[in-house]
């Protein structure tokens, strides 16, 4: 893989990086990770994206990661040296979109897509039908692949186009990049239950309306008060709520974290990602140490999975180099503050190359379970090249 970093965050800098990546003989596709603060707009970027001959996929994120460094302005361009099948999906804002058909159309034009082992997923974080889309991806592509990715967008939540494709900048969609290479995955978050479970008695999409038949915000406020989190108000909701996410139970797996980021006029809690009616949720709590430890744990799980992978291979198989991809939730960055650098170091941990993003929600699955859209979670993937 060819990784170039443009710290200026300018369109011209990106164009130079794209030219540089495209000029490399072994590059078959390009991944762009850009900071929202770059201020990329379709009118300036689309002509450049249209000109690219190689498959291009990318996203705009609150921040990007390179080695031990978090950049809030700048662009990372990754020249992908394996066979790449890009699938461009639209209509995540509409309830009737047939995602399976769109994926099929994209796959029909590709050869390695049917068996390639790594799937990179970028999705507009504020689109309302992410869950249906994620389910469709798994229905079509199935197990025995590593899925990794995250939600694009900015913390302003302005819904401006945040996905980068050969067709230009888009919103309300998703990009699926099927990479014909092996990879390993580790997922961890470091949050532990302090109260619950509470039954989600009324919910619609990402909106939790009632918990145990009580107004969700009222119950949530009581729980936080009881857990020593102080007083949460509508005005300073996220300031307190970022330390008390929800967790949905699953058997033998990490809780799926749901991050409540606002409260609406009716007392409903609005999360990143949906919470189904009838689900049971815990209120979680974490501290800086547990989160940093979890990020290190995610890296370690990826390493273990990679070793398992190696063990299954033929004895004469030649080890290939990897690049570490890190999708870390932006709300972890906000929670950790100055100590985020420790989390980043815990994941980088001496690996030669690390690229990543501070995403708004994460997508992950190491091929042995249903695909999930997470919040507040650290996802580490070591991708061979």
């Amino acid at each position, binding site marked *: 893989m060819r990784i170039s970093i443009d710290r200026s965050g300018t369109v011209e800098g990106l164009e130079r990086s794209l030219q540089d990546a495209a000029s490399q003989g072994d590059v078959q596709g390009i991944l762009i990770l850009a900071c929202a603060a770059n201020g990329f707009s379709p009118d300036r970027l689309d002509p450049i994206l249209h000109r690219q001959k190689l498959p291009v996929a990318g996203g705009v994120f609150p921040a990007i990661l390179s080695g031990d460094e978090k950049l809030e302005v700048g662009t990372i361009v990754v020249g992908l040296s394996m066979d790449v099948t890009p699938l461009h999906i639209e209509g995540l804002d509409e309830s009737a979109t047939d995602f399976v058909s769109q994926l099929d159309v994209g796959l029909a034009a590709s050869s390695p897509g049917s068996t390639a082992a790594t799937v990179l997923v970028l999705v507009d974080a504020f689109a309302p039908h992410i869950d249906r889309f994620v389910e469709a991806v798994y229905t079509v592509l*199935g197990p025995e692949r590593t899925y990794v990715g995250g939600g694009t967008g900015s913390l302003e939540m302005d819904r401006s186009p945040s996905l980068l494709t050969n067709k230009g900048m888009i919103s309300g969609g998703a990009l699926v990049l099927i990479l014909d290479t092996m990879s390993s995955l580790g997922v961890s978050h470091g949050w532990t239950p302090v109260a619950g479970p509470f039954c989600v008695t009324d919910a619609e999409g990402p909106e939790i309306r009632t918990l145990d038949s009580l107004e969700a915000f009222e119950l949530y406020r009581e729980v936080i008060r009881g857990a020593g989190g102080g007083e949460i108000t509508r005005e300073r909701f996220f300031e307190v709520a970022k330390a008390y996410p929800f967790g949905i139970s699953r058997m033998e797996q990490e809780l799926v974290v749901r991050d409540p980021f606002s409260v609406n006029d009716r007392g409903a809690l609005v999360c990143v990602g949906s919470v189904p009616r009838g*689900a049971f949720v815990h209120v979680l709590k974490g501290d800086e140490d547990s989160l940093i430890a979890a990020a290190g744990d995610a890296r370690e799980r990826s390493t273990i999975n990679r070793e398992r992978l190696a063990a299954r291979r033929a004895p004469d198989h030649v080890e290939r180099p990897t690049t570490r991809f890190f999708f870390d939730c932006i709300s972890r960055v906000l929670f950790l503050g100055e100590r985020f650098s420790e989390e980043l170091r815990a994941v980088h941990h001496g690996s030669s190359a690390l690229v990543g993003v501070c995403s708004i929600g994460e997508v992950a699955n190491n091929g042995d379970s*249903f695909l999930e859209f997470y919040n507040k979670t650290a996802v580490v993937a070591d991708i061979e090249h």
Partner: protein
Amino acid sequence: MRRLDVPLEILYELAMSIGNSTDLNENIQEALSTYLQKLHCFAGAVFVPAPPGSPEPAILVKSIPRQSTLSRNEGYRAAMAYPGWSAGGLPSKGSAGLDYHYHWFDLPEYGWLLLLRTHQPLSNGLQSALLEINSKLAISARSCSTTALHLKESRQLLRNVLDTIPARVFWKDNDLRFVGCNIAFARDKGLASAAEIAGCDDRSFSPSPYSEKYRADDRRVLATGEPLRDYEEQQTRPDGTERWLRTSKVPLRDEWGAVIGLLGVYEDVTEEKRSEEQIRRQLKEREALLAEIHHRVFNSLSVISGLLSLQASRAAETGDQRSNVDRAFRATRMRIDTMAMIYRSLYRAGEYVDVDMAVCLRDLANHLSHDYPAARRVVITIEEDTASLPLEKAIPCALIANELLSNALRYAFPGERSGTIVISLRLESEFPGGDGEEKISFSVVDDGIALPAGTDPERTESLGFYLVRVLAKQLRGFFTVDILEESKTFCVTFPP
């Protein structure tokens, strides 16, 4: 008792979440998705017994991932080698290699559930707990199947009804795309079946000058939420023929009242419009014919009147001025002129049934004024609320008016006497002391001199009053005279 190694909230959530939908497809999809999410499974599938005669004993209803993807998986292939329908007893389980474990469960009286995991199989405790949840799923799936069958039957019935009625029925979504229609509508659009309409819009068919008008009406219904009822519009069929339609469009709403589309119904009223046009044309022809007849009657009467006038002039030339013959001719001519006036007023007004008696009486008064010098000193008034009469009553009534007005002008204002004559013709519903039935009252009132002593108009043999009595009888009425000191009222009362 063995302790269950699964958080109770997961089991509770499974029990609460599975089997809640009334749609079979959604029900199975949600159940599989929940099992996969909660139980750390990587795949799941639901099978039902195949219909008799099928090569396979079972058919797949749904799987996550889909079958074409799943069939590549080693665990799935192992599970299908020992399927639930051939197993000795359920639940059953097995494994493939080190990594794949499969579990077959019975869905009582419905089918079989397959769950696939890696790393380790489901614990025995969990398998037992799932039996109850699977029973709920099976009951729900059976219920959905029955409901789906009933729904299918109901839909078929509705489809049959829609395809039987002569009206054309269609429905569209908010984007003005057709969602469905009946077969009559599909044929109007040149389609072989109603199913072909889905996804089309009015511009999808052969070019029509009316497409944009249809869409504008649709947009109006969707924007206002108000129906458009029974309006006429045109349609061009695929063969180029033009048809007339009587159309209604009503908004369709969801359970919360939001407009989600519209329903349109129209009838082909082309034949009806043609019949109406034909009747209108025939009526016009008959009116023209009637006008011509009335014109010819008027002309004939005018010729007779002219001949009588000529004859009267000849009698005058013989020196027998104002002779009885002259008066007879003049009186007869006036009567014929009166009848001619009625016919003229008919064809002039273009009204062939009722005669405007106000016009007619005014013409008569003008006409008589030329013949009687007294008319210069007498003010003749036609009262404003004069009624119209049908032709068969208008002629005798006008003749009565001619007699009474002639009499008044001839005898009531001798020498230089001036005065007034008031003519009225009105419909009266109440007569003092009467029977309450409607009657028409025609009267001529003058303030001229008294009748000669001993003259009783109701009995006298003079031709004028005799004619009045005869004509009153013809009208099934009666003639009365009311003589006061200052006026005389001659009145004919007859039913309308």
